[in-house]
């Protein structure tokens, strides 16, 4: 009964032009609190992807490969990653009685929701991407978040795929796990001078780094003996859309060097599920980002990139890509709605100063905190005349698309920006 109501509400929601990606779950749960557990028990292998940045890309990469193997795959590709979003995905995929069996499910899961989801599952593979400071008003500290997540894990209910380069990931080392990480040969990530100082979770002393990739990711160790675990899955070469993992060449379609981690995380999980390199390569080749993760629009002969930027680490990584893209316009859409985080002080931890080295003709800012972004740019050394502030993206877009450009949009601004650019592309 609750499934029927759930499916109905998804249908109606889409009829009204919404994405209907969460409402099914929200409706159904009012009628049957056990529905999640019931539907999940009909899935052979459940994969959860969580962490600060990269969840969506990793989930989509994994889904793309799973779909090579079976038609019975559930994935929340549109990113509804709360408990109700996952439930919605399962309701949409299942039949009216809810007893359809599935081979796989891969879900991106919001970090704070992960314990609630684990409660409903007997077993899951959990892929962690990274843990950065993100939305402090929602998540408080990373440590508290990790403590909360651990409450959902036992020795038997989870197999973790951990990022060895992230000391926060290693806080989960006591559970069954394998690691992935970059080799020292990968030097493409330019040293970010704004390294966060992290404390060793075992003894409280500051971690030391022998090698550093970006933010707090790298080769770390502590005087007490705690250190980075040697990964089972090692990426040793990084070129545009082409990587080498454990001596195997893997191609993919994702722009941006930081996607190396996403490709690596997905690869590691799929190998643990015994997929062959051939099948993995097939799946990866079919996945093109259409969800605002370095999404490329071709508008009247101009390239317009759209990228989601939610936090310091994400914005830093995106800025590093800009040089290679050869764009003339850089656009920031900065909102402060609940989904974005109400506090925008994080933009001051971003290396905006690096934009001075590029040949950018115009910087556009909009969104509810676009003005804060304009001050950030000015105080970073960008000339005032090059900074154009507008009410919203709609007002600025015609000027923007006159040149090759990149749009950095915060979470709640992304979908509208995508819609607008798609419309411009169609014309």
């Amino acid at each position, binding site marked *: 009964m609750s499934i029927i109501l759930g499916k109905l509400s998804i249908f109606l929601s889409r009829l009204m032009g919404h994405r209907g990606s969460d409402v099914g779950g929200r409706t159904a749960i009012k009628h049957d609190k056990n529905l999640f557990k019931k539907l999940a028990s009909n899935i052979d292998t459940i994969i959860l992807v969580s962490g600060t940045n990269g969840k969506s890309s990793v989930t989509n990469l994994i889904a793309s490969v799973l779909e090579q193997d079976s038609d019975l795959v559930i994935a929340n590709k549109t990113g509804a990653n709360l408990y109700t979003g996952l439930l919605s995905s399962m309701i949409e995929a299942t039949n009216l009685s809810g007893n359809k069996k599935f081979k796989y499910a891969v879900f991106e899961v919001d970090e704070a929701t992960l314990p609630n989801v684990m409660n409903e599952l007997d077993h899951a593979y959990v892929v962690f991407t990274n843990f950065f400071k993100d939305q402090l008003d929602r998540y408080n500290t990373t440590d508290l978040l990790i403590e909360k997540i651990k409450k959902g894990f036992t020795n038997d209910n989870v197999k973790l795929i951990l990022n060895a380069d992230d000391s926060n990931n290693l806080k989960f080392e006591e559970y069954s796990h394998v690691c992935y990480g970059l080799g020292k040969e990968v030097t493409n990530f330019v040293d970010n001078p704004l390294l966060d100082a992290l404390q060793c979770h075992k003894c409280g002393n500051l971690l030391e780094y022998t090698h550093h990739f970006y933010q707090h990711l790298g080769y770390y160790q502590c005087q007490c003996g705690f250190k980075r675990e040697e990964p089972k899955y090692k990426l040793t070469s990084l070129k545009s859309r082409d990587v080498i993992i454990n001596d195997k060449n893997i191609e993919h379609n994702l722009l941006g060097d930081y996607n190396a981690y996403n490709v690596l995380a997905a690869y590691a999980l799929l190998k643990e599920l015994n997929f062959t390199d051939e099948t993995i390569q097939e799946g990866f080749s079919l996945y093109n980002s259409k969800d605002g993760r370095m999404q490329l629009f071709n508008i009247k002969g101009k390239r317009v990139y759209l990228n989601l930027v939610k936090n310091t680490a994400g914005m830093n990584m995106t800025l590093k890509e800009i040089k290679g893209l050869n764009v003339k316009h850089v656009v920031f859409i900065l909102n402060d709605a609940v989904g974005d985080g109400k506090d925008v002080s994080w933009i001051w931890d971003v290396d905006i100063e690096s934009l001075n080295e590029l040949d950018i003709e115009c910087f556009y800012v909009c969104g509810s905190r676009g003005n804060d972004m304009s001050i*950030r740019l000015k105080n970073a050394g960008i000339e005032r005349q090059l900074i154009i502030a507008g009410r919203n993206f709609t007002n600025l877009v015609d000027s923007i698309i006159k040149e090759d450009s990149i749009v950095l949009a915060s979470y709640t601004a992304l979908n509208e920006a995508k819609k607008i650019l798609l419309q411009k592309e169609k014309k």
Partner: protein
Amino acid sequence: MDYHIYHLFPKLLNAYGDRGNIITLSFFAKEMGLNPIVHEIDDISQIDWENIDFMLLGGGFENEVALVVQYLQPIKEKLREKIIDGLPFLVTTSSYPVIGKIYEDSYHNINEGLGLLDIQATYQDEAMVGNVLIENSKFDEVIGFVNHYHEVEHNYETLGDVILGFGNTKTNKSEGLIYNNFIATFMSGPLLVMNYKITLFFLEAFAKKNDIDFYSINFDLIFEKRTFLEMSKVLKKQIGK
């Protein structure tokens, strides 16, 4: 003229974008014709006590703040003297509660603080999060964002009356502390980015001390004024003003 800006333990106290306070102050100092020199202090031996023009103690997570409080113990008397002497000094967010003799932490333990001024800081279990708008301030209006569990009580001048959001305590409708040229607040923003009048306040103190005619300086405040006015409008709308 050199303008020595001291940023205490920026790698540990980096949770609330306080770096923005330093970048902004430097920018304004340049506009004033000064040569800003930023000293990022990871060790107290790096401090040149004869040449400090501004000091910032920003916010961090609880463990990091506790570490910094330890690192600063040997020089807390010196810091207190500087504050009484009129050193422009800003303390923000989670470092505000530790400026007293003692403070309570999240485990409800009482720890030794920095003893800079006479305040009481208690920890209580409900977070105080959100935008804050202050009126009747030395700076007309002050705007910021808070996210903390501490309540602070003291008898010094405050930054003003809270019209929207949380003050020093859940019931106390004033926020922050101001004494001489020392300001402490729970607010991030960062504070000096959103509130150009406070940035000017600190620079004016320097100007007075160094015989600079502050009023003849033309600061270009178009971006700052626009940002502040729009944010003020948005926040006032939330309380039906």
